[in-house]
Every structure is written in structure tokens, then in C-alpha cells.
């Protein structure tokens, strides 16, 4: 876990401020299809199904609610 933390810190500290676009260049980023989760229920159902069929889950965010799924 520690190595993950240090990679993360490094990514946050370096480089980020030199990347990116100007505020008026967000035309493509503003599209629905360019959102991190473009399809709310596709993502929701996937998470739900794989949560009940696989040994690992999570990663995308916090919260969500458990189930006694089989």
C-alpha cells in the first residue's frame, strides 16, 4: 500500500499544473460522452452484478450500499 501512496503523491505533486486546457477549450470535455461515468445505470448495474459474482469490489468511489447477493 505504501508504494501506491508514494506514486499517488508523486503524481499529485509533479507535472499536473503544466497540463490541461484553457477554460474556453472545454468544448469536447463538456460533452456527456466525455464524462468519467457517462452512463449512470450501466455503471450502477455493472458494479452491482460484479459485486455479487467476484471476490473484489469498489475502487471507483465511496458508499453505495451492500447486499446479501449470491
Amino acid at each position, binding site marked *: 500500500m505504501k508504494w501506491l501512496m508514494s506514486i*499517488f503523491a508523486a503524481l499529485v505533486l509533479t507535472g499536473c499544473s503544466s497540463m490541461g486546457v484553457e477554460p474556453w477549450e472545454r468544448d469536447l470535455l463538456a460533452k456527456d460522452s466525455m*464524462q468519467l461515468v457517462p452512463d449512470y445505470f450501466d455503471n450502477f448495474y455493472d458494479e452491482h*452484478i460484479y459485486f455479487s459474482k467476484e471476490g*473484489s469490489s469498489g475502487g471507483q468511489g465511496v458508499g453505495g450500499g451492500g447486499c446479501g447477493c449470491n
Partner: protein
Amino acid sequence: MQLKKIKGQMAAATCALLQVATPVANAAENDWDVDTAFLYYGEADGRVQAAEPAIYMGRNIGDDDRIDLRVVVDALTGATPNGAYAVNGVAQTFTTPSGESSYTIAPGDTPLDSTFRDVRVALGADYTQSLDRMSKIIWGANLSGEHDYFSMGVSANYSKDFNNRNTTLSAGVGYNNDTVKPGGGVPIEFAPMRDQGASQNIDGSSETKTIIDFMVGITQVIDRKTMVQLNLSLGTVSGYQNDPYKIVTVVDDPVAGLPSTAFLTANDLPYVFEKRPDSRQKSSLFLKAVHHLDEDVINASYRYYSDDWGIKSHTLDLKYRYELAASYLQPHVRYYSQSAADFYRHNLVLGTDINTAGDVLVDYASHDYRLAESTTTTLGLKYGIPMDDNSEFSVRGELITQSVNDGAVPAGQETPDLSAIMLQLNYSFVW
């Protein structure tokens, strides 16, 4: 009075009167975004079938705040593996969770418990509270209930934008409290399943567990067409984590792997209820990138997961949105592979893992296929038609194949592959 032509003067005067602005669409339009969906999930060979209608509604409140609500109903039927494995030449008989009846599995078939049937209702609400132009907190709450399981949780997620909104840092915490109330009571860990009608090895009627999650994340705009996200999550689960319906087969001879005939008294069956640790530490690293090509969009993610049960997994997910003239096609590929939990056991061997008095000599054991080494492959295709009035209709089909690597087990006792389909209909609109 002389009649005179006033048409021109009148037109000019009218023009001065009417040139006024029309302050129409005043405030931000606070309409509801609505997303309705229906999922059919069906596993082959008579296993789980699920129908899941769902509705989501979200709207802005004032300038910057927002509320999102979600209701999902989940109706399940079918059969699910009970933890024992198929054996050639021997029929196996099990007692249902209630202890009142039994079912017999033919030789060579995988033991499935078909008594489960459930309806689950889940409610979720998020409130986005903007703190200033660059930062916000999303407060979340969720509640779900089914006849033997109840879950409630709250979460908070803070995020802040930096450098012209090109970087977003976020941190979140979630707390969940789950209660399981198995039909027939909570089976005693490692206690044998008993014959139908005999008094079952039950201790109490419910158990709970709590889950605490932490997450930090960064989202970075790389260029006009690319955005990446990196999340780091830590989770702690403590409390009851067994699957109360799952058992482990006890054998006399690991080479043959047949259910023991020498195990304990006449009323005991050669299966014991599983036992897992009561704590689990999980961590994961999640990476996502969205990239806009000339027209199309690629959405790719990778997750690395590891926990102190010994499970490590890799998940790759790739969606390609292929734009057609007025609609789109979106193929989807997902690949998942995990290693087995340390305590995943094909069986417990009498004399080595468990003695004739019924004392189990290992700390934990489970034969739940979800804790085995496995891979899951998903292939899917979605077709969507966005419409002018901000509504969209889409249909999605996915084919899921899961195969378990049992390691060296006697022939015929392998966990069968699981294949399932997902069919999803979606209609979203502004209301």
C-alpha cells in the same frame, strides 16, 4: 379634422414601444434529469435470474447545489451453489437453511440451493453542496433491504478544483452498517449441517458487519481530448462476513474427494458451515482515462485490488463509443482475474483439517467460488439514440463468462463455468 395618413408614424411609435427585451427564460432551468432503466440478468443452467427496474432523478437546487435520488428494485429467483462440489457416483443430500426440508443432488451435478428467492429494494440519495466556485461536498445516504439482509450507509466526498479546473482533488469517506438475518438462524461456524428435522447448529438470528471506506482521488485534464482519473481506496470490513448459506465438504480421503462417511453422528451431514475472518482490509488503485478521437470516445479503466484475505485482482474495462449519424454503438470489453483467498479450500480432510470430534484444526475455510482463483470475461454492445429534446434511449446486451481455476482437484469436482447475459433498456429525459 383632416384625414391624414398616419401609418408610418404609427409603425415608428409601435417600434419604440415594442423593442423591449423579452426577459423570458429567467432563472437557470431547474428541471429534473430522469434516467429510467430495466435490467434483466440471467445465468445459464437454471441459476440466478434477476429483474431490476430502476429510476434515477436529479436536479439542481439554486445555482450550484444538486440533489440526486435513486430507487432500484431487484427481484431474484433461481439457484445458487451451496459450497459443496459435484461428485461422481454419489448422490448428495442437503438440508435447506430453514432446516425443515432437504434436497438431493444427482451424482455428478453441482449442488445448488434453489430455495432462494428474494426481492431487494434499494434507495439512494446524494446531496451536492457547493462550498465555493471550486469546491464541493457530496453527502450520500443509502438504504437497502431484502428479507434476510439490511444495509444502511452514509458517505461524504469532498472535491476541490485547481489550476483552471484542470486538476480536481477529492477525498471521501463512507460508512456502512449491514445486518444479515439468515432464514433459519445464523449457523454456527464450522458446525456440521444436520439432517432435515434434526435440531440445526444455530446460534442467534442475526449478525452485523461494518464497512469503512476511505478514498483519495485526482482527476486531471491532459489536453482538450483527454482526461485521466486516479483513485486510491482503503476499506476495512469488520464483523460477520461469512456467507451463512455456504458449506464446505468434509472428506475422508482427499484423493477421491468423496463426502465423508465416517463423520460424527448419524444426524450430521458431511458438510460444515464455512468460516471467514471477521476482519478484512482492502485496498485498490483505480485508473481511468477518457479520450476523444475525431468523433468517437474511448473510456478505459484499470483497477488493481488487494486484500489481506489474499485476494489480488486486476480489472480492465474498455468502452468504445462509435458515433453513427444520429446514434451510437458502444462495444464493451471487460476482463477480470483474481487470485484465491488464502482460506479457499476445496474440502476439509477428516483427520488432518478436522478431527472426529468435530474440532476444525484450520482457522478459516470456505468453498465459495467467489473466493477462488477465477477470471471473468465480458463482451457487450450498446446502441443508443440521443434525441433533440435531451432525451436518450439505449439498449445494451452483455455476455459474461466466469471460470474458476480449482487447482488440483479430483476429476468431476471442478467448479463449473458460469455464463450469464445482461439485457438493459434505458430511457433518460429531462422533466
